[in-house]
């Protein structure tokens, strides 16, 4: 009892929320909504008018003609004009309704997509890190689509309600008793429709979810195809996929059975209604209480009005999905997290001077997790270079993210040329610093656009940056050189090639501080040493902070920071650290020690 009541309340609230979402759309696009609704009402009214025309024609043309064996041509012309006129105006109504609904839906979608992506660009990286990529992508796409799904059947449903009201009025006006017989049909169709929606919509939701799961398995399995093949796991993978596919199949078959049951019910109810009207109608004609044309009109009305009633079910059926989609979209738009920027502009420095970077007592941790960095302080002097050396997961990447202000420290400050990075105006830090990360992200764009990223740089400058990054050779060999499109995430290039383009992207901006986070890991050692040579040759005007394993890279730096478990455990020149610290020596000498051992 209590649960039934609770479920009822839940359904009622889903209904209310569904209408609330629609209200948002109507408020935002009142004119388009008005046009499409007027179109739909026009369509509804004229569908009823069609039945009236048929009744009128029966009474004034068909019956007199067959009775008297003659008819005036004026009446015949009137019949033609009425039918054709009604049809034309109704066609206009259809166009207005459908086009209006489309425009409204697409506008709402476009609006929300713009808002959501704008928000993504504004939200701090820490927020991004807390949300899975797949979820964010579906918020901007599938959820937006689901939220505004009910707009498509909305005008039709509103028009149908209008049509029903007009139809009922006309039926009552024509013959109240016959109308009463016919009127039993409308509520029955509405109820059958609602029951149908209620039974089938959970199944459709489930099917949608299963489709996504089937797709996920396929995606993952194909992406891991090499592992599947080399370990001979094709059977197991197929079994995993088959289980989900069969689940989907079973749900669809069940949904199909429900539809199979309701299709004839929804079609049969008006037919039975018409038969009842005919029987009662004939009896009433016999007693003189009614006339033949009334019987025809009401029968025809039942036939044409019954089908559109289903659109009310379509509208309500979209509600649950819409409400969920709308909430998900809102949760992005309402996220309050943002990166506050100051107003300070970096003092103009004479060109070719490196940036001075200071970290002072910096701490960082993600909420409720172990600290990743503790009390980190160091300075990269203008034009100087510092290497950060440490084991896997010692906090190196977090350090570079702090410098580029992808995240803000929990305590302590990061300063460039003496200014706290949090006080800098938006975009200001990026003018001075270029970060090249471990994994090179490339846009689905040309090589040129990927390197320039909208900055005003000449092709010569791009080639020069590519030369330094040792990427000029392979780029020149691409089919369209700098104009080659790279495809989604640069899929057409090797890891090393992607890294070199990412490096060129940083270099072309002539950054005053270059931050490299193991940025050449996928490049083979000889190419890497050429890159480093070129960097060293060019670099007086650029300060350098570099995360590295390889000694040749470390040797570039004036000072080395040895990072362990989020703390700077030692610092100094490379040779100095080697002589002093066993742990450091172990880390960087691993290869040669092996030689000694082996």
């Amino acid at each position, binding site marked *: 009892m209590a649960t039934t009541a609770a479920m009822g309340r839940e359904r009622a609230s889903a209904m209310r929320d569904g209408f609330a979402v629609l209200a948002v759309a109507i408020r935002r696009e009142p004119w388009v909504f008005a046009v499409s609704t007027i179109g739909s009402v026009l369509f509804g009214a004229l569908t009823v008018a069609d039945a009236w025309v048929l009744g009128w024609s029966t009474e004034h043309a068909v019956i007199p003609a067959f009775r008297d064996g003659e008819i005036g041509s004026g009446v015949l012309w009137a019949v033609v004009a009425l039918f054709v006129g009604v049809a034309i105006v109704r066609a206009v109504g*259809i166009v207005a309704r459908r086009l209006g609904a*489309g425009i409204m839906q697409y506008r709402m979608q476009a609006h929300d997509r713009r808002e959501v992506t704008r928000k993504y*660009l504004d939200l701090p990286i820490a927020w991004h890190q807390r949300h899975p990529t797949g979820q964010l992508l579906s918020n901007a796409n599938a959820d937006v689509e689901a939220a505004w799904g009910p707009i498509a059947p909305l005008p039709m449903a509103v028009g149908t309600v209008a049509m029903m009201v007009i139809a009922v009025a006309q039926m009552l006006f024509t013959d109240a008793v016959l109308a009463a017989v016919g009127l039993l049909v409308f509520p029955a169709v509405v109820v059958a429709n609602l029951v149908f929606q209620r039974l089938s919509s959970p199944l459709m939701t489930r099917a949608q979810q299963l*489709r996504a799961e089937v797709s996920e398995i396929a995606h993952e399995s*194909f992406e891991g195809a090499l592992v599947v093949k080399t370990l001979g796991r094709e059977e197991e993978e197929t079994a995993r996929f088959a289980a989900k596919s069969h689940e989907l199949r079973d749900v669809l078959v069940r949904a199909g059975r429900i*539809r199979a049951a309701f299709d004839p019910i929804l079609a049969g109810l008006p037919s039975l209604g018409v038969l009842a009207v*005919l029987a009662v109608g004939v009896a009433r004609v016999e007693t003189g209480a009614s006339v033949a044309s009334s019987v025809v009109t009401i029968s025809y009305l039942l036939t044409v009005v019954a089908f559109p009633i289903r659109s009310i079910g379509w509208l309500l059926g979209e509600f649950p999905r819409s409400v969920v989609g709308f909430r998900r979209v809102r949760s992005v738009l309402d996220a309050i997290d943002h990166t506050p920027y100051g107003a300070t502009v970096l003092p103009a420095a004479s060109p070719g001077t490196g940036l001075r970077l200071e970290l002072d007592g910096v701490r960082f941790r993600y909420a409720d997790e172990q600290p990743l960095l503790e009390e980190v302080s160091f300075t990269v002097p203008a034009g100087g270079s510092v290497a950060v050396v440490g084991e896997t997961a010692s906090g190196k990447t977090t350090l570079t993210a702090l410098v580029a202000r992808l995240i803000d420290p929990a305590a302590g400050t990061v300063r460039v040329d003496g200014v706290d990075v949090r006080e800098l105006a938006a975009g200001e830090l990026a003018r001075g610093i270029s*970060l090249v990360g471990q994994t090179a992200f490339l846009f689905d764009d040309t090589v040129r656009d990927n390197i320039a990223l909208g900055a005003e740089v000449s092709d010569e400058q791009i080639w020069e940056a590519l030369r330094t990054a040792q990427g000029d050779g392979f780029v020149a060999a691409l089919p369209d050189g700098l104009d080659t499109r790279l495809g989604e995430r640069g899929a057409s290039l090797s890891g090393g090639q992607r890294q070199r383009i990412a490096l060129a992207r940083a270099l072309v901006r002539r950054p005053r501080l270059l931050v490299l986070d193991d940025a050449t890991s996928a490049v083979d050692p000889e190419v890497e040493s050429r890159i480093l040579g070129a960097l060293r040759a060019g670099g007086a005007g650029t300060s350098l902070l570099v995360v590295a394993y390889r000694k040749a890279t470390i040797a570039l730096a004036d000072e080395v920071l040895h990072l362990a478990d989020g703390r700077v455990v030692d610092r100094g020149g490379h040779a100095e650290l080697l002589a002093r610290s066993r742990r450091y020596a172990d880390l960087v000498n691993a290869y040669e020690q092996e030689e000694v051992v082996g």
Partner: protein
Amino acid sequence: MSTTVSSGDDLRAIETIRRGLAHSPELRTGLVPTLLLALVATAGQVVVPIAVQQTLDHGLDAPGGVDVDYVLRMGLLAALAVLVTGVASYLMTSRLFRQSERGLATLRIKAFRHVHELPVLTQNTERRGSLVSRVTSDVDQVSQFLVFGGILFIVSVGQILVATVIMLVYSWQLTLVVWVSFGPLLLSLRYFQRKLSAAYGVVRQQVGAMLSAISEPVVGAEVVRSYAVQERTQAKIDTAIDIYKVASTRAQGFTAFSFSLGGLSGGLANAGVLVIGILLGFAGDITAGEVLAFAFLVTLFVGPVQMGTQILTDAQSAIAGWRRVIAVLETPADLADPGDAGVDLPRGPIDVRFADVSYRYPGGPPVLRDVDLTVAAGTRVAIVGETGSGKSTFAKLLTRLMDPDTGAVLLDGVDVRRVRSRSLRSSVVLVPQEGFLFDDTLRANVRYGRLDASDRDLRESAAALGLGDWLDGLPHGLDTRVGQRGESLSAGERQLVALLRAHLADPDLLVLDEATSAVDPRLEMRIGRALEELMRGRTSITIAHRLSTAENADEVVVVDAGRIVQRGPHADLLAEPGPYAALHASWVAQQGAGLRSGPPDEEPRDRVS
């Protein structure tokens, strides 16, 4: 050799359906009874028009005045007909759903299986998304059509046919009037449909562009932020969204227009039927009831022509989807499992022989030329060479990810092409550079190497590889979720999982292709030493940039431009002038060997327990 999966565009519609039915036999099962049921079901549509006609002519206009009894009897009969046809409709629809979904599930699973059978090269050249869509959305499209458009199609055609038959019984002249009203529209459906599908083609293309644009601020968040290119990114997104909106609106306009024409034809038909019907009535060719029945029968034409373009569009995309799925199934899996005709490899160390092997990637120059190489069972061989020298090709041929163009790869004297897949995969394991992880726990990922392994086996394996500390250091241990593609772990940790997995698989021949390139040097050396112990009594072939691996191998094979240019133990090769000495010199320089030293008082040999 390497095949690409064709788009199947060259396959004609009829041929597509024929082959599609062959791949999903369930679709044909019971098709004849289903169609018969469909015929009965559609007959339900003409019950009302006939009842109206009967009522008018024999009830209201009966010779002896109004005949209520006749109408009641007729009404009951008609109600019975509604019930019977309703049951037929239920049976038809549920059968159609059941057989379609069964057939398509079979097709989906077959295609999925076949993608895994495709050559690695094909898998790599195809965009992953496109392979995925062949077992998902392409199949869904066929399903959508069979159970929605398909039913609609059967019902529409049936409805028009049955209505026409009844009309002909009443009056051939009025039937002609109705067909003249709807004919032009029926004939132009194809034209509208082509227009529409072109418009929706543009929409689909723009969806792709838009999705790619809106993914940038998410997947490229850090780059966008660190280069402060928010405005540029947003401008790109806004443009893509607008183009999509305009394309969708255009397509919607077309749809609305073509949809509205059905009602227009209906109006014309009704006007024609009444006026001409009355004129025919003067000649006594037709009754009033029959004329009015036409008005009801005309409504049976409106629905089908309104939905006609939609049905044709659905049909077209279903055929296209079906074609693409069939194209996957019909792409040859050229690394076929010999099955029962094949042999199993005996367990124990494997000896390897490359007999005059040549290989070239399709359209490229040869990567291996006449390579002849024997690796004795139980030895450790390192293959070294510059980037592009053909090193990785060795690994792929050895593990039968590809077959050589000429010559043969022999394991224990047996051509790999004759070894059963099961046996090959359990004896030979490749650890690639990018060890792919599934979005699951660490445990599940490691157990992928041996499905029945217990937690204890896993821990023992980790300890044996010197990874016990690392495993213990993870906050959730074996229950750690690795995230999509293993992205919650670092690149180095992903390689550790792949190694553990391979170790657990307990192969007789282990092939490592840059398998530890992303772990830190110290850990790499630790793993190297651990592997050395473990590979005692087995055969291992290692491909690496880092020459440290070569130093410990029994034999080093130097590859250059697809040929073996030098081979022998590290020390011997180092002593003679040649490519290896040069490679090694540059490796040593790279390591900054001049700076090598350590605290003198400490023992640098740091064996891992």
